[in-house]
Every structure is written in structure tokens, then in C-alpha cells.
């Protein structure tokens, strides 16, 4: 009866485990392929369908080789989990691997959330309103029609869900002669701490004037002229004194053209700018291992030392080896016979040596 109750209880516990969506807390912003490293939602093929609807928009009709363009992806009408968290991808294909925009030659200047990743997580309050993410990009080095896709991972109804957009075409044309350009080697500022001024070095070519425009919380746009020194344009982005949404962009102009990068968001450095020296961290880990091991072994050896003789007890060292042998031979403890028929079946020699005496005393009244 007891066994039946135990088995029933265990069975109920196993059946009580709910099927949950994968990673409801998200995976964090990063550069992720469509297959999400095989671990985000287990596998794209295992996710349930989503009712998400995608819409693309850009800040210009076409781009040129290496030129800026901002792509905004709006996703709405999706099912939502209790957390309301969604993960939005910008992709160059849906192969599953090597399909980020960077793999196709695009440069991500900003993901609109203080980073430069193709995968962004955000919370959605209302599925109808959805969420919009704007990626500020530099076009690839090859002319032609380039496709971008968006995909969304989210939960809803206890399941992991995902959807992929139709391809969105962007035409990349030749660079107009004498067009001011930001070189793809530029590493934009995406994160910084409060109260820090930032000096930006801007590798701009074909420009006679460069201006840094910035806005706090979508307010009025302020502008600072960059200065040219030793063929490098430099501008200083003022410090922000509170946790406020700061965006900036670079306006490059000459007598013929005026060109503007997309808006670049500056985020929290603890979120986007964390970077540790991995070699130092590994050394610290090794130090912890050695130190903890040294402590363990030290205590273990100390505890395993034979006790020092107390007052009145004869010191073992004063007893000669010969006398000890004689004493041991005359009055030594009875030894165990390894072939003793009372030895339990399956006991190894080591177990019999250590536990045999206790076993015989417990069950047979002694060794003899």
C-alpha cells in the first residue's frame, strides 16, 4: 500500500510539470543567427507559429555603397507571455547560420538600444501597438539589390513562438562622386557612464563641414561643429547628468551634398559596454581553485595527524622498534582471515579489511 501511494505521488509530481516556453527571461542582446545558436528557442523548427505582423520602413529610398541608411522594423499583433518580452532579429537571410546583416557586409552602427547587435530584446505592453526597433546601418560594399529579413521570438499561451518576415529589398547603388562618407572603420560610441564627456573621432571623407547633432529624450536637436585636425574630424558630445535617452548623428556636407548617418543611441555602459579581461578572469579562477584546494588539503592533513601523547602517556618514540614488534606479536589484535567463510559475498578485500572486524563482532560475537 505504501509503495502504491509513493508511486502515485511520484507520478502526479511528474505529470504536474508544465510545458513552458523556452528562455522566458530572454537571452540578452547579441549578434545572433536565425537559429539563435541552437539554444534560444531550442530550434526554429520546434517553435509554435506566431501571429506577429511585420512592417519595414527606411529613412531614405535607397543607399549607396558604404552609405548610411536606417531601417525601422515594427512588429505587432503577436501573442505575449506574462513578461511581455520579445526578441527581434534583423537578418540578411534565414539559413540559420551566418545570416546576420554583418555576414552580408552590412555594418550596424546602432541597434537603437545602446548597442550594435542584430538581436534586440524589448518589452511589449500592448500587442496591437507592438514594438519598433531602428537599426542604423552602413550599406555593404557591393552594389545591387540586398534583402533584409526580420524575425521575432516570443512566448504566449505557454509556448515558444516565432515568426519571420517577408524579405525587404534595399537597393544599394554606386557612390556619387564627391559624396561625403563615413568610413566603415568608424566605431561609434554606443554606451558611456553618467557625467562623462565624450570626444568622438569621426573618419569622414569628402566633407568640408561635419556637425554632431544630438537630442535628449527626443527633444529639440542641438548641434556642435566638429573640428578638423590632422585629417581627423573631432567633436565633443556633452555629458548627460541623469539616466536619459541620448541619441546623436553625424551630418557631413560639402558644396554639392549633405549626408547624415542614422540616429545612434547611447546606452548604459553596464548593459552594453561591459568587457572584462578574460585572461585575468581565468587567472583569478585558477587562483581560487589553488587556494581552496590548499585550504582543504591543509585541514585534511592536520586532522589526519596522529594525536600527540598526553601527560603521563609513554612517548611512542621511546619504545624501541624491536620491543614494539615483540609486543605486537604477543598481544596483537586478532587478524582477519581473507578466506573467512563468514565474509559477506561481494565484499572487496579493502572493505573486508576495514569493516570485517565490526561485521564479525556485530553478527558473530567476535573475530574468533
Amino acid at each position, binding site marked *: 500500500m505504501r509503495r502504491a501511494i509513493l508511486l502515485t505521488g511520484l507520478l502526479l509530481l511528474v505529470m504536474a510539470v508544465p510545458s513552458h516556453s523556452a528562455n*522566458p*527571461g530572454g537571452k540578452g542582446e547579441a549578434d545572433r543567427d536565425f537559429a539563435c545558436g541552437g539554444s534560444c528557442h531550442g530550434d526554429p523548427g520546434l517553435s509554435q507559429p506566431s501571429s506577429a505582423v511585420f512592417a519595414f520602413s527606411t529613412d531614405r529610398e535607397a543607399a549607396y555603397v558604404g552609405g548610411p541608411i536606417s531601417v525601422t522594423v515594427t512588429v505587432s499583433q503577436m501573442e505575449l507571455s506574462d513578461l511581455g518580452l520579445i526578441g527581434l532579429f534583423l537578418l540578411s537571410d534565414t539559413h540559420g547560420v551566418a545570416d546576420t546583416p554583418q555576414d552580408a557586409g552590412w555594418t550596424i552602427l546602432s541597434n537603437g538600444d545602446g548597442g550594435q547587435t542584430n538581436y534586440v530584446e524589448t518589452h511589449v505592453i500592448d500587442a496591437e501597438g507592438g514594438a519598433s526597433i531602428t537599426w542604423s546601418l552602413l550599406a555593404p560594399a557591393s552594389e545591387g539589390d540586398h534583402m533584409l529579413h526580420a524575425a521575432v521570438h516570443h512566448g504566449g499561451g505557454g509556448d515558444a513562438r516565432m515568426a519571420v518576415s517577408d524579405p525587404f529589398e534595399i537597393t544599394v547603388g554606386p557612390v556619387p562622386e564627391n559624396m561625403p562618407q563615413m568610413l566603415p572603420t568608424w566605431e561609434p560610441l554606443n554606451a558611456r557612464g553618467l557625467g562623462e564627456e565624450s570626444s568622438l573621432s569621426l573618419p569622414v571623407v569628402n566633407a568640408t563641414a561635419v556637425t554632431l547633432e544630438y537630442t535628449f529624450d527626443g527633444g529639440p536637436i542641438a548641434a556642435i561643429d566638429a573640428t578638423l585636425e590632422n585629417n581627423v574630424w573631432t567633436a565633443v558630445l556633452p555629458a548627460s547628468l541623469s539616466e536619459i535617452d541620448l541619441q546623436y548623428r553625424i551630418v557631413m556636407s560639402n558644396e554639392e551634398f549633405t549626408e547624415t548617418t542614422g540616429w545612434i543611441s547611447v546606452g548604459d555602459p553596464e548593459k552594453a559596454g561591459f568587457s572584462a579581461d578574460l585572461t585575468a578572469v581565468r587567472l583569478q579562477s585558477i*587562483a581560487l581553485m589553488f587556494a581552496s584546494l*590548499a585550504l582543504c588539503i591543509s585541514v585534511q*592533513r592536520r586532522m589526519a*595527524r596522529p594525536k600527540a601523547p598526553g601527560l603521563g602517556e609513554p612517548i611512542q618514540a621511546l619504545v624501541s622498534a624491536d620491543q614494539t614488534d615483540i609486543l605486537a606479536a604477543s598481544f596483537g589484535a586478532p587478524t582477519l582471515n581473507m578466506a573467512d567463510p563468514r565474509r559477506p559475498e561481494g565484499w572487496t578485500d579493502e572493505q573486508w579489511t*576495514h569493516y570485517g572486524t565490526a561485521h564479525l563482532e556485530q553478527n558473530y560475537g567476535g573475530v574468533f
Partner: protein
Amino acid sequence: MVAAATVHAFSTEMLIGSMTFAVLTTCLRLLATFTDRIGQRAEVGLDAAAFYAAIFALVMIPIVAITGNASGNAAASPLLVNKVLLSGLCLGLWIGVVHGRRTWGPDLWTRRSMALFHTGLVCAGYGVAAMLGSIGGLLTRGETVGDILGIWPHFGASPTIGFGMSITLAILSLMTLLVVLFLQPKGEPVDA
């Protein structure tokens, strides 16, 4: 091809399973030291099971660390940095567990102080492994079962120690270990 993260999840399950088994059998063996409710055969079995489960867990720790390292960029998150640090501590403690049982032999359970120390060490090693699992939960699911306790650390910040200080710490700890290994008198197996 299976992703490193999948192999990491698999090896972690093996590790935690064997560690849990080692902790349970160790605690039961400790119980036998303080009571007479457990028979002789069970005592032998519990001791052996705890020992071999600890050895298996020890073998699995480096595999879990390597696959975990291959699954993500540890330098990009304070949580992952703490994971790397705690992995070293976990490995040190479990080597200590196996070393202790091997040095003292199966009769360590006849001395209460040793039995308590050994069980405490096993529990400490398991606690560190639980913290590592908790960080994994925070990374993948955004929450940890440890939150039920209310006092469970989230490891959202990691120590910032430079390369020079790190290598100094590593050398100092290595010297400490060498001193213990070669200068401290060796322990003897416990004789019942």
C-alpha cells in the same frame, strides 16, 4: 552538428545529477556515524557510492567549464565572469572532497570530527555548483529557483581585478598549494 550550448546543458545535467547523488549518500553516511539505524552493508555501500559519484562529478566539472566557455563570450557579462570564477572554486572544493576521502580512507566515518568536516566540504562544493546553476538560470530564463529563498545572490556585478594583480594572486595561491603539498606532514589513513 550539435551546438556547444547543447553539450553544455547535457554535461551540466550529468554533473548536477552525480553531485546530488554524492551529497545525498554522504549525508546518509554521516547519519550512520551518529546513529545505529543504518546497517553495516548500507554503510559500506553509501561510502563507496559517495566516493565514486564525487569522482565522476570531478571529471565532469572541466567538461562543463569547457563547453560553457565555448557557448558564449564570458568577457561580455558580469554574470559569466562570476561563472568562470565560481567554476575554479567549485573545482578546488571537489578535488578537496576526493582527496580527503582518498587520504583518510573509508574509516574516516569512525571519527565524528572528520565525518562532519568531510560532509561540510561536500555540501560547500554542492552549494557553489548550485550558485553556478543559478547563474545559468538567470542567463537563460531570467530567473532562478534560488529566488524562493529570498537571500540568493544574483551576481550582477563582478570584481574588477587587473591582469597584474590576477597573475600575482595565481602565483601566490600556487605557492601556497605547493607549500601544503610538499612541506606539510602528510596525513595518514584513519585506522578504526
